[in-house]
């Protein structure tokens, strides 16, 4: 890390872990790596022990975490795709997230157990842990997380950073307006000098989940049936738009509604990822009709080309629907917030020079939905139409979709492996002395 002539370069990695919990998935991995080790769906399947047939009990090392012995009322937990996507009688699917923060701590604990045991495969007391959080995370939730990490997992050190800040870092910015289009919501957060402006942040509940719901609605209207993938035994090759010919599997009885819905949602999401495209400007029947088609085959074997529907589908992200504040309005709100910020940026303190560029100047886009083709261009266009005329606007996003989706995690990975960051951690000593009250001070 230190070279000749006293120059210091590179980072200093201390074996830290980075966790980025989201509504769609939890990203976890070692700091200094470029992608998370695992991207785990943010849901936990539970089966009450009475349901479990004896045969399964003997499986020695599935990735199942179990609490206690098999007595009445005990639950078995199934985490990650390989376990979760198996049809099981009586398996309920629960999410532990709510409103951008962890809500069900018992389930989240199971998830962390799984991460340490099956992903990291190393004891938690060896690794400092850096967590990302949404800007509006409440104080009790933050403190609870610190408590969990220090008291249950004996982490040597812990730190919390706002995900918008990390996304800006991942794009090489310390001052930016970060637009995060995640699963549960889309938010715009101004970040200045590495600090998120909490009160200036705006969000709308339109995100990837809404898009999937929209896809379901659209397919229903087109009378296309989305059969559950797990129920198909085999299917025949058929011509386009022909009725699907398939045989069904025999499934275990007692599949729960929550699990079936979860599985179907994944399929609708897949449909969105393959088909959805954001049009350059507002949806127009004629322009959309001339765009290239995209082919999609449904689990039952039915397949067809999708043309204008591709654009119609994503229009909900930019248009007001279902009474939700749409993205454009959202950005408008953040821009009116941005203006005083902007005005405040140009003056200088006597010695401290504030960033010369207002956050308007650089807009950083991240999150899963941001990787939909055309989304970034549309955002840039919508913003340009609303920006003060004298402002040059520049939007940034990682070129490939994984980096966009993992922007917050990557920022965390960068931050936790910077040498000068190592003084920021809340160590277990500090926690023992100062308690969780210092969290507000130490993690801005």
């Amino acid at each position, binding site marked *: 890390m230190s070279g000749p002539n006293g120059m*210091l370069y590179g980072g200093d990695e*201390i*074996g830290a872990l980075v966790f980025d919990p989201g509504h769609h998935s939890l990203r976890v991995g070692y700091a200094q790596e470029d992608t998370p080790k695992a991207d785990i769906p943010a849901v936990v399947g539970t089966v009450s022990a009475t349901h479990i047939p004896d045969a399964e009990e003997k499986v020695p090392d599935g990735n199942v975490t179990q609490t206690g012995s098999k007595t009445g009322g005990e639950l078995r937990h199934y985490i990650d795709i390989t376990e979760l996507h198996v049809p099981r009688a009586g398996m309920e699917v629960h999410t532990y997230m709510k409103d951008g923060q962890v809500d069900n701590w018992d389930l989240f604990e199971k998830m962390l157990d799984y991460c340490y045991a099956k992903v990291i495969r190393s004891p938690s007391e060896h690794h400092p842990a850096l967590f990302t959080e949404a800007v509006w995370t409440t104080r009790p939730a933050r403190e609870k997380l610190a408590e969990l990490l220090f008291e249950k997992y004996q982490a040597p050190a812990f730190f919390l950073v706002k995900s918008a800040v990390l996304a800006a870092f991942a794009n090489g910015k310390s001052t930016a307006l970060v637009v995060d289009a995640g699963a549960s919501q889309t938010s715009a957060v101004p970040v200045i000098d590495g600090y998120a402006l909490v009160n200036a942040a705006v969000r709308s509940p339109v995100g990837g989940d809404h898009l999937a719901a929209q896809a379901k609605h659209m397919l229903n209207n087109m009378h296309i049936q989305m059969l559950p993938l797990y129920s198909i035994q085999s299917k025949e090759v058929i011509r386009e738009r022909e009725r699907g010919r398939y045989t069904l599997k025999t499934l275990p009885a007692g599949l729960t509604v929550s699990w079936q819905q979860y599985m179907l949602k994944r399929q609708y999401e897949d449909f969105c990822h393959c088909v959805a495209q954001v049009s350059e400007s507002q949806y127009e029947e004629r322009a959309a009709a001339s765009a290239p088609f995209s082919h999609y085959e449904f689990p039952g074997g039915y397949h067809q080309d999708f043309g204008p529907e591709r654009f119609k589908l994503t229009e909900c992200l930019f248009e007001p629907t279902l009474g939700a504040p749409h993205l454009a309005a959202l950005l408008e709100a953040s821009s009116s917030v941005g203006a005083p910020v902007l005005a*405040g940026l140009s003056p200088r303190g006597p010695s401290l020079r504030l960033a010369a560029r207002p956050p308007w100047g650089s807009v950083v886009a991240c999150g899963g939905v941001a990787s939909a083709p055309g989304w970034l261009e549309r955002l840039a266009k919508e913003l340009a139409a609303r920006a003060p005329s004298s402002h040059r606007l520049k939007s940034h996003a990682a070129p490939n979709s994984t980096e966009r989706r993992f922007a917050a995690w990557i920022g965390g990975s960068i931050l936790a492996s910077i040498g000068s960051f190592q003084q920021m951690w809340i160590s277990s000593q500090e926690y023992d002395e100062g308690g969780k009250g210092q969290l507000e*001070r130490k993690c801005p």
Partner: protein
Amino acid sequence: MADILDILELEQPSAEISRDSIIHGDKVKKKYVTAKAVKRPEGMHREVFALLYHDNKDLPPLLPTDTGKAYKQTKAKLGMRKVRKWVWAPFTNPARKDNAVFHHWKRASDEAKEYPFAQFNKQVAIPSYSESEYNQYLKSEDWSQAETDHLIDLCQRFDLRFIVIHDRWDRAAFRDRSVEDLKERYYGICTTLSKVKTNPWSNTVTMVNGEKRIYHYDAEHERKRKEQLRRLFDRTQDQIDEEQMLLAELKKIDARKRERERKTQDLQKLISRADSGNLPPLSQVNNNNEGTSTPSNTASSIARRHDRKLHKKKITTQQRPVRAVESVTVEWSGIKFPEARGTGVWLRSQRMKLPAGVGQRKTKALEQELRLLNIDIAPTPTEAICKHFNELRSDLALALDLKNALDSCEFELQALRHQYEALNPGKTLTIPPLISNMVGDNETKPVGEIIDVVGSPSALNSTI
């Protein structure tokens, strides 16, 4: 090295690896390679070539194979020195107040020294005051002590980033305050305390010629400035259009006014000439002109004609200098800063933006020059500074271009000299000192001195 040799199918050196065997050992290899080598076609990538040809001409294995032998033998020795061990070692960080121990990789041979990144632990000095000091000097009608304490605390936490401080201001406990209010109070405290206390805070007090200078924050000015900015940003498209329309109208009115003045002047002349006798033909033309521009004529046509006239004037005035320049064929390329841009009001700092035509490299070079001159690369844009700064940068750009041109001329001259000397062996071409830049040390020195005079030597040292 055994496994590498195995892969290359080279003979294994039987003896211990020594300096000799490494230096002379490759003779054997070379022979082997040249015997079989197929020449790589030009332009083909090494990797592609490697896929097509290798030593024994069979296809690369599809599956990873393990010969079972390679890895069990002596380890690869790639250097003469022994490899230095890395260890996962504990360390403490002096930048931390607790003595937390973290681990990182370090060379076993490196002796323990202070954590190198601790040197980046810089903190802004924030004034502090005691209870009695507060009561004595800092009491304010507007600010309670609790609120002041909160402000100082936030200043400490966010290193005087007032925008962030404003965002995190405890609005539940205290009333909402603007960024200017916060700054005003903070700098007020600094000023008061630095008058009564001896320790100066680096950021608000500067010593100039042994005399304390305290930063004065002009809150009223800032408020006005931001209000102006806000209005500028909040203009709607309608307002911008209206503004443009008004500006156009103003131009028309001006043009009409000038036209009228011209007419009265002509009239005056006409009268005076009529008084003195016969009319010259020129005024007839003028008269004709006036005949068409009866009051019914639209203002726009007047404006247009006026414009045309202006053009003519410009052309005639421009012609002379062009001819003068022709004899000097130096292509001068300073920076042309565009005049007013955008509509309506704009920020003066925009005038200092380099135009888009200036490339990245040139921008970097300019910044470097400015740094050498110890000049802020983004100074506060007052009218005068703006003007001088732009002129300076334009001159600097020109100087850089000239320097480049000089360098290339010099290069050409030297090349020609070498050519001459090669064609006429034994002769040397002496370049008259007048056109040569390659002069003795005694002549370059003054130049160096001049540069030193411009930028202070200490600045030169610190920036290099």
